[in-house]
């Protein structure tokens, strides 16, 4: 068994990328993700790959574009303002069917905001972000161990579906230290030769990788092809963790850092016999709709907890067709919802926690 090491989330993610076979990293400094380029600047060279500190996030994502089209596993990382700059490149990656992993360690916004943790880029990540009818797969780790494991998964998904994958973390996940074990091995995908890359046309016909499609019918057909792939992904790649799905009357819904707080609330209230559980989406796109559909019948209401003014809540409502009440509790600006606040919110919904007796 691999031994556990104490690492911060950003470094665990970077090490996992190397293990997954990532051999190209380009990025521009921004807090709270600076540990990733710092780690890569050393480790990537040891691994025989390329590390580049680019002149901007625009340049970084386009360097990743260039590297990816040669068949390399390529990654860039940034935080909210920098991710806004990458949107152009992400749209081009999607259009050119190029795999890439993009890490967003979210911070408070809008604008320059602050460097405290946040989940306010959810819309940008799951609804498109850049121009055009495209999607990226969005993965939300909730621990340092998942920062590692889900990074490896992200590279596989990017290659499998030939599209950008975003890892959506926040400042806490990036910077907190936890024990982590690098037990996963690179999958078969990382070893498969890619038959679409540009590496010089020796022994084959020249290839073109481009996104301009002037003919309307051709462009519509291309979009339909993408949509077909997106449907396949929605069908096969929904991931989430459910706690107490069998008998919960109220379900918390939270991802990433907030899911950890929500989870302790659930455990606390379970101890006093409350029928409460949690759904923790791991893929934010595709959203784990099936799980919601399944639990919708038995659950009386949902409480979505986010570090935003209410973004994922829209997907929860859509997933259950607003069949049950969906409540929201969020903090922003770098504030993290705490357990008491969530319990108070539950109280307001249904007198749920029975706090008087709790206090004794």
């Amino acid at each position, binding site marked *: 068994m691999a031994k556990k090491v104490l690492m911060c989330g950003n470094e665990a993610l970077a090490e996992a990328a190397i293990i997954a076979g990532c*051999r*190209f990293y*380009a990025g521009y400094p921004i807090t709270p993700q600076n540990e990733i380029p710092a780690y890569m600047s050393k480790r990537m060279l040891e691994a025989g790959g*390329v590390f*580049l500190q*680019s*002149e*901007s996030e*625009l*340049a*970084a994502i*386009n*360097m*990743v*574009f*260039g*590297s*990816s*089209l*040669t*068949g*390399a596993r*390529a990654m860039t990382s940034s935080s909210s303002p920098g991710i806004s700059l990458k949107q*152009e*490149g992400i749209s*081009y990656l999607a259009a*050119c069917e190029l795999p890439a992993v993009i890490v967003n360690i979210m911070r408070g916004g809008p604008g320059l905001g602050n460097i405290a943790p946040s989940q306010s880029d959810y819309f940008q990540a799951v609804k498109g972000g850049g121009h055009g009818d495209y999607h990226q797969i969005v993965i939300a780790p909730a621990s340092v161990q998942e920062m590692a494991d889900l990074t490896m998964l992200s590279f596989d998904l990017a290659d499998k579906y030939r599209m950008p994958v975003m890892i959506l973390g926040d400042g806490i996940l990036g910077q907190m230290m936890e024990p982590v074990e690098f037990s996963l091995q690179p999958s078969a995908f990382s070893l498969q030769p890619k038959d679409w890359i*540009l*590496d*010089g*046309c*020796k*022994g084959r016909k*020249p*290839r*073109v*990788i*481009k*996104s*301009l499609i002037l003919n309307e019918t051709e462009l519509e057909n291309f979009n339909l092809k993408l949509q077909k792939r997106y449907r396949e992904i929605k069908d096969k790649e929904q991931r989430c963790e459910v706690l107490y799905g069998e008998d919960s009357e109220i379900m918390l819904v939270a991802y990433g850092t907030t899911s950890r707080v929500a989870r302790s609330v659930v455990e606390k209230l379970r101890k006093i016999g409350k029928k409460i559980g949690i759904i923790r989406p791991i893929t934010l796109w595709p959203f784990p709709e099936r799980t919601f559909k399944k639990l919708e019948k038995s659950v009386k209401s949902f409480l979505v907890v986010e570090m935003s003014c209410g973004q994922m809540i829209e997907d929860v409502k859509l997933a259950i067709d607003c069949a049950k009440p969906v409540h929201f509790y969020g903090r922003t600006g770098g504030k993290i919802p705490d357990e008491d606040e969530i319990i108070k919110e539950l109280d307001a919904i249904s007198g749920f926690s029975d706090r008087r007796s709790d206090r004794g």
Partner: protein
Amino acid sequence: MDKIFEKPESIRDKETHYCPGCGHGIVHRVICEVVDDLGIREKLIGIAPVGCAVIAYDYWDFDVTEAAHGRVPAVATGIKRSLPDRIVFGYQGDGDLGAIGTAEIIHAANRGENITIIFVNNTVYGMTGGQMAPTTLIKQKTATTPSGREQKTHGFPLKVCELLSVLPGVAYAERVSVHNPQNVLKAKKAIKKAFENQIKGLGFSIVEVLSPCPTYLGLSSKDAVKWVGEELVKEYPLGVFR
């Protein structure tokens, strides 16, 4: 009988979409001749820009990708760093390289990326309808400078070769023109050198090509080349800058 003129292997047998008298076709051909001469077609990756030359891959018979507007040098960097033994070149217009992509070109040059850039300066944004480019001359009329470019509002024509020539990462910067056959031959020599530098690993090479856009100069093909040869070269002197 000896054949003295033929289609380069690297160029597809296809009519181009360029306007009559446009310089892009000439530059495409010269690049393909050089590619054939150097025998690098099978290890070559070209990058088409956003601009009139965006579908250069319809004419070039080797691996080609297409970058977002202005991002050619960043894409080239990603390719070359991942495949250092391949030959990578970018093709850019003056809007692409001199306006939206200024940061990318300066930093690729400054890093001394071992790539080749062919920069087609036609003093306008051809593709979008002849708007002012950073390279537009003072007093030159364009779609967005109807009474001529004024320095007070729009600044000065941007001298890319001069600008890049001060960067130690640049191995070679030359400005050429394609307004007559003698100059096309000189352009070919320069483009060849820019590729040879890359083969030798000497670092960043750029060839700026002054090129006519008769359509948006509002001139006949004949007058457009004359204008390039007589007027444009005054603002943009030909020669080696580094």
